[in-house]
């Protein structure tokens, strides 16, 4: 980025006006990307009746945690949360392992057939069987209503694997050669030298996978019918779409509390509950995403 000092000198009046409008536009745009999240949080901790008139919420109106008390009374939100956490953890672990194992051989120039193998992976980025054939295949493997249906169909993206491969390629060959000289085999070279040295790229790619597993919902809709395996996104989708949420959530007995609680408040609280984990790790996410994408931009 340019140093601000040098620029000030040559600025004309037109440029100052331009700069003003650029700043104004960016402030407004950033407002639209952040305010809605804040709105949901503030609405969810406002008293239902006070919040009903809508409008902008810079602060909660008559703070109340009733909506949260109510949504956490249901078992299903914990089930859905648990499933999402579990599939994100297991999925990321499997995906990153598969990607590392594949990326390393493909990064070695001496490997015979490297081009062909690379092409086999690259082609999956250009062409897919589509949703229905994939569904039928997953079904034929007996994965419908199984936990693994939430993990395996998206366990490794060629794009992420190529980011790692490009990173491994940039490691000097001499490191590998001297390790081989000391009698190390390829697994040792990979896990003792390449993996530790490539931590930033691996962290970035793991982040890509983690966010994808956390946010993906179509697998939860296509492959899962059992409530015990419902994931958070699917639960949230049902809740937002439903009118009559209060009735649909079992276990709410306290009618006087329910009378002071609108559907909107409960929906906001559930949305908030599902985005809080993302907001907590956000600074980390943003940093690693930037790094990963910058690495990915390196061309073959």
């Amino acid at each position, binding site marked *: 980025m*340019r140093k601000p000092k040098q620029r000030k000198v040559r600025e004309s009046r037109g440029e100052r006006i331009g700069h003003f409008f650029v700043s104004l536009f960016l402030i407004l745009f950033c407002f639209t*990307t952040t305010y809605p999240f804040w709105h949901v949080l503030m609405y969810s901790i406002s008293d239902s009746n006070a919040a009903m008139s809508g409008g902008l919420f810079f602060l909660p109106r008559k703070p109340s945690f009733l909506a949260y008390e109510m949504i956490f009374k249901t078992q299903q939100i914990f089930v859905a949360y648990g499933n999402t956490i579990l599939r994100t953890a297991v999925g990321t672990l499997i995906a990153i392992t598969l990607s590392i194992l*594949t990326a390393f051989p493909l990064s070695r120039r001496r490997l015979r057939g490297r081009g062909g193998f690379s092409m086999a992976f690259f082609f999956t980025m250009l062409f897919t*069987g589509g949703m229905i*054939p994939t569904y039928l295949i997953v079904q034929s493997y007996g994965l419908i209503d199984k936990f693994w249906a939430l993990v395996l169909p998206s366990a490794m993206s060629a794009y992420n694997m190529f980011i790692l491969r490009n990173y491994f390629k940039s490691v000097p060959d001499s490191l590998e050669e001297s390790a081989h000289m000391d009698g190390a085999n390829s697994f040792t070279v990979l896990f003792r030298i390449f993996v530790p040295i490539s931590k930033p790229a691996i962290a970035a790619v793991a982040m890509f996978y983690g966010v994808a597993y956390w946010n993906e919902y179509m697998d939860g809709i296509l492959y899962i019918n059992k409530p015990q395996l419902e994931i958070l996104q699917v639960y949230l989708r049902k809740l937002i779409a439903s009118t009559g949420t209060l009735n649909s959530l079992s276990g709410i007995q306290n009618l006087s509390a329910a009378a002071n609680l609108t559907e909107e408040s409960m929906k906001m609280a559930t949305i908030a509950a599902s985005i809080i984990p993302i907001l907590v790790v956000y600074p980390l996410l943003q940093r690693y*995403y930037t790094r990963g994408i910058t690495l990915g931009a390196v061309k073959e």
Partner: protein
Amino acid sequence: MTRRLGRDLSRDKLLYLMLIPGLVYVLLFKYAPMYGVTIAFRNYNIFKGFADAPFVGLANFAKLFSRSAFTRALGNNILISILKLVCGFPFPIILSLMINELRGRKSRKLAQTLVILPNFVSWIVINGILFAMFNTTGGAIPGLLRSLGYTGAISNIMNQKETFQWVIIVSHVWKGAGMGTIVYLAAIVGIDQQLYEAAAIDGAGRLRQMWHITLSSLRPTIVILLIFRVGEMMYAGFDQIFAISNYLVISKADIIDTYAYTLGMEQQKFAEAAAAGLFQSVIGLVLVLATNAIAKKLDPDSGIM
């Protein structure tokens, strides 16, 4: 010669071993569905299974194209993806140029951090957020309009046929903007500062520097992203539309994927649904290869392959 091949293979046997899990994986979960797509040419029946289904040529495609709901979905698909490309592709470039014009590292960093926030949540969450903004009972915008003294009728733009395609386009551009800026800003950081200094000495103003240096340095990045983007043209955004649309707006929001979902998962017409998907994938592949070839012709160093 063969001895050398044998020696190389045995030297690298562990590397080949490492490749096996990945290869098995793509075979089972990527290539098997590609083979499975041949049901698009078969008279598939869930009870008889896959292998016994007789080939019927293009009959499924003919049936599919004779359905008015499919042609409607195809029309929506083309319109939505063109609008998304036209509005959504340049926006992150413009946004990056704007962020780069901000004075001070801190404010640039802050802007970059804030614009990317919607990118990290799912379309389901965005649907909830759109609901929070626009629902007419307690939504932010209707409430704001009323508190500003507006007394007319306010309708929920999420339920209006007339506005829904714009909801799709604008929310797409808004959600994706931050991700695009990461790529472009990373490329901008890499531009040689001396170019700017030299241009300034020659009397080039901010705008001309932006045009001749920043934008032209971004060109290779823009071309690569454009190729991928054009290749995705047939995909008008299933995740998004499935999450945010509802039956009131289906005539404007139904695209090929959502229609294939309805055909396959709700009506059990798997073969026709697979035909819809294949139609999409093939055109997508042709588009990538064609744009790549054009890009290569214009500039031999660009392109993805």
